[in-house]
């Protein structure tokens, strides 16, 4: 049920925000808030309820627990982790997009992120590779609303390229899955026949299938030689859309391709060395070519896109391996890429916004003006390469050796570190003498902003607490006064009694709105007095009436100051919480802080935090095929 609710929230949220954000005005504001809340809700649901052990499916024993639609979609730890990370990062990116360009900046990115979460949920929970591939297809299409958020000319060809890439890559994975299943039938039916020989039709089919999967994964990730699409895409989308386009979209397709490889192709163990060799060459070209392109690029967005593409090419090594043992590390690697490259894309967007340029020569000295962003880039680099013992480092070291023989494994391992010079170049660029663009930009005033923000928050909390305590005290005193005057409501109701010692119900502090407490008490008490005076004296009826009136007075006396206190607290909150304009005035520091948070999250995952290894290594939902493997 949780899985279905997650899909409904993300899918309906995507549609509703896509429509409402274009309307502008208050509707767009409400859509932005609603979309962000939807993302938060999806993240909470992913954490709380989508686990395999938390729900029980129907009575059918063949249906895995927690699954939806008769076992078509099965939740798992990997799905939980990825969707939770995606939704959480989407909230941060939404905030960054708002800081960068206000509500108009959210028009494409917010619905696209919601749709990407929905598509990824389908792809990662699908028990059948075909459905996983189609979920990846849908995820790929989310680049189109980002492109068309700004409808200037020159955007249709990139949009059509995205459309083509999404549909064809998904279709190829789906067909590869079913062809692999067919070959599996033939081989397992007669393993002694031609199936075991190199060059036989089954071996050729498996080899071509693996090669096709590798090609579509490379094409989807924008690895060299398919990099032109990614570079053109990076040119036309808003900078904050780059993480989504470069890092999020390839993930579900890669997971679907790994699902086919591990569950259908690898068990056949057919001799397909030529195709595996071609895949290794493709991986080397992807790693080396993209690293070189990133290093020589003078356009920051292009460099970032190539950096993401280079790291994505490591997944090709896992496909070349045709070994289910590489599946877990590769899925962990994909999560590390997802988070660290989201941080890198966000860093790029913040830098571009900050210095009003994306030309690398104009960014000389950027780190001097933006030390937080400098720290964030170092942390992103750390998350990308890791240290010995970290997941990101170990995968770069061990995956090639698991997948292929020497000297190819060493070559691949070395090639996987070829992006390091680009990070060094960016850092060195940052500490150089500031260029004109950088010189014009205002320096980060994190310390000042932080101090001012902390002071404001502390002052606000103190005043809110003081107000709440004062009102609580008044409420308590009022109740005591009611209890003390039970049977004599006139005592409380008389104006003079309200100020007597022991029955003080006034707001005596300077922070309290003038006369609020006293007025409230008096106004609440008057009707009961009138009721009491209207009753004839003596007899059980009047006594009941007096009791009821007294109880009502008590309740009102207790609730009244509380409500007044809440109103006063709300008013204090309104005064203390900065307005949108005030928040955006400090957007430079806020953007840098958001990037730093993303970078730290990437480092935590690269270290192996959040139980990444366990989640990636599970053989449950999204990690096992629903097809029989005999």
């Amino acid at each position, binding site marked *: 049920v949780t899985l279905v609710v997650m899909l409904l929230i993300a899918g309906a949220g995507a549609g509703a925000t896509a429509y409402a954000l274009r309307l502008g005005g208050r509707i767009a504001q409400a859509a932005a808030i609603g979309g962000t809340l939807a993302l938060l809700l999806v993240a909470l649901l992913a954490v709380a309820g989508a686990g395999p052990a938390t729900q029980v499916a129907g009575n059918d024993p063949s249906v895995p627990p927690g699954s939806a639609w008769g076992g078509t979609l099965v939740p798992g730890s990997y799905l939980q982790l990825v969707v939770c990370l995606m939704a959480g990062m989407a909230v941060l990116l939404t905030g960054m997009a708002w800081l960068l360009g206000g509500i*108009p900046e959210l028009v494409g990115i917010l619905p696209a992120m919601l749709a990407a979460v929905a598509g990824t949920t389908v792809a990662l929970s699908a028990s059948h590779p075909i459905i996983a591939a189609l979920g990846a297809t849908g995820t790929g299409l989310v680049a189109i609303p980002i492109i068309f958020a700004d409808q200037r000319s020159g955007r249709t060809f990139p*949009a*059509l390229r995205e*459309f083509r890439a999404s*549909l064809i890559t998904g*279709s190829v994975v789906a067909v590869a899955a079913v062809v692999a299943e067919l070959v599996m039938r*033939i081989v397992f*039916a007669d393993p002694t026949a031609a199936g075991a020989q190199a060059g036989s039709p089954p071996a050729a089919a498996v080899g071509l299938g693996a090669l096709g999967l590798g090609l579509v994964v490379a094409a989807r990730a924008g690895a060299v030689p398919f990099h032109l699409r990614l570079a053109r895409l990076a040119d*036309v989308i808003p900078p904050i859309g780059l993480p989504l386009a470069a890092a999020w979209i390839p993930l579900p397709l890669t997971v679907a391709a790994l699902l086919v490889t591990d569950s259908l192709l690898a068990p056949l163990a057919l001799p397909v060395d030529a195709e595996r060799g071609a895949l290794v060459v493709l991986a080397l070209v992807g790693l080396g070519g993209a690293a070189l392109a990133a290093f020589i690029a003078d356009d920051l967005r292009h460099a970032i896109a190539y950096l993401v593409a280079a790291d994505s090419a490591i997944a090709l090594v896992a496909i070349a391996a045709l070994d289910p043992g590489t599946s877990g590390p590769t899925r962990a690697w994909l999560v590390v890429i997802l988070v660290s490259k989201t941080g890198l894309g966000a860093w790029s967007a913040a830098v571009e916004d900050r210095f009003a340029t994306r030309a690398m020569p104009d960014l000389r000295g950027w780190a001097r003006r933006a030390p937080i962003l400098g720290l964030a880039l170092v942390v992103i680099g750390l998350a990308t390469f890791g240290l010995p013992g970290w997941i990101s480092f170990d995968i770069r070291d061990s995956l090639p050796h698991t997948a292929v023989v020497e000297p190819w494994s060493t070559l691949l391992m070395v090639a996987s570190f070829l992006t390091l010079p680009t990070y060094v170049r960016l850092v060195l660029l940052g500490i150089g003498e500031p260029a004109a663009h950088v010189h014009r930009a205002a320096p980060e005033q994190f310390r000042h902003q932080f101090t001012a923000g902390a002071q404001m928050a502390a002052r606000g909390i103190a005043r809110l607490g003081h107000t709440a305590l004062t009102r609580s005290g008044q409420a308590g005193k009022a109740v005591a006064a009611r209890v003390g005057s039970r049977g004599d409501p006139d005592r409380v109701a008389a104006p003079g009694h309200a100020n007597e010692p022991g029955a003080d119900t006034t707001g005596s502090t300077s922070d309290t709105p003038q006369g609020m407490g006293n007025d409230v008490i008096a106004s609440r008490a008057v009707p009961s007095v009138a009721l009491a005076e209207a009753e004839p004296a003596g007899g059980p009826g009047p006594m009941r009436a007096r009791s009821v009136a007294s109880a009502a007075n008590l309740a009102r006396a207790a609730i009244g100051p509380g409500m007044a206190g809440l109103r006063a607290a709300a008013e204090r909150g309104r005064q203390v919480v900065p307005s949108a304009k005030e928040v955006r005035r400090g957007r430079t520091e806020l953007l840098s802080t958001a990037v730093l948070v993303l970078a730290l999250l990437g480092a935590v995952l690269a270290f192996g935090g959040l139980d990444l290894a366990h989640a990636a290594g599970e053989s449950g939902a999204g990690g096992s095929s629903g097809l029989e493997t005999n």
Partner: protein
Amino acid sequence: VTALLVVLAIAVAAGGVVAMAAPNPRHAALGASWAALAAAFVGDPLPDPAALTARVAGAALAGWLLWMALRDAPRATDRSALGLSGNAAVAMVALVAGWFAALALASQLAAAGPDGASSTAAAALAAGSPIAAAALGTSFALVVLAAYPVLAPRDGLRMGLGTMLLMVAAELAIAAIGGGDDGTAIAFGVSLACAGAALASIAAVLLRQPAGLALRDPHGHELVAHRATNNLRRTDLP
């Protein structure tokens, strides 16, 4: 029923021919929508009625969105180099080739023994079902028809419709081999609806441009030059 479904498979290929060759963009969209719609019924066995309804609804929604997006389209665009008859001939040859490929695959399955042929996945094909053979043949035809407009596009709409036809071809291939089920049918329906919506939005933007649906001139040059965004959009910064 079998003969009817075989004729339907051939009609799907005919829809593909119209999509790639009809000069009128709305006719082309109609052809592709028909191919996507009718392909849902080319399978042995057919999916569950509920799944089939979802699949048909997805294709119909895609077709309706495309039809609406193209209401201001010009009556005629550049003709396909092969023309209607040339495309039809190519499709026919590919369909026959695919049919023979299906027969060859069936014999391979039969030769593999009872285990290879008895599985659900390949049962219809191994049994020599003409529906499975027609589905594979139509899949071949759609791939051949769509290959050129997708790989070397001159017209944005044909490129998009060709891509959708490739997706339909994938579905037909899966149906021929028997790898699909109810969940697959629903997933294809949803995917087609999403693809139709995406292509409709692209077509609407294309029609607002001076070059219309055309992407390249006869010499292969892009009509709308690639242009990067400005560095920043400082709209309402304090």
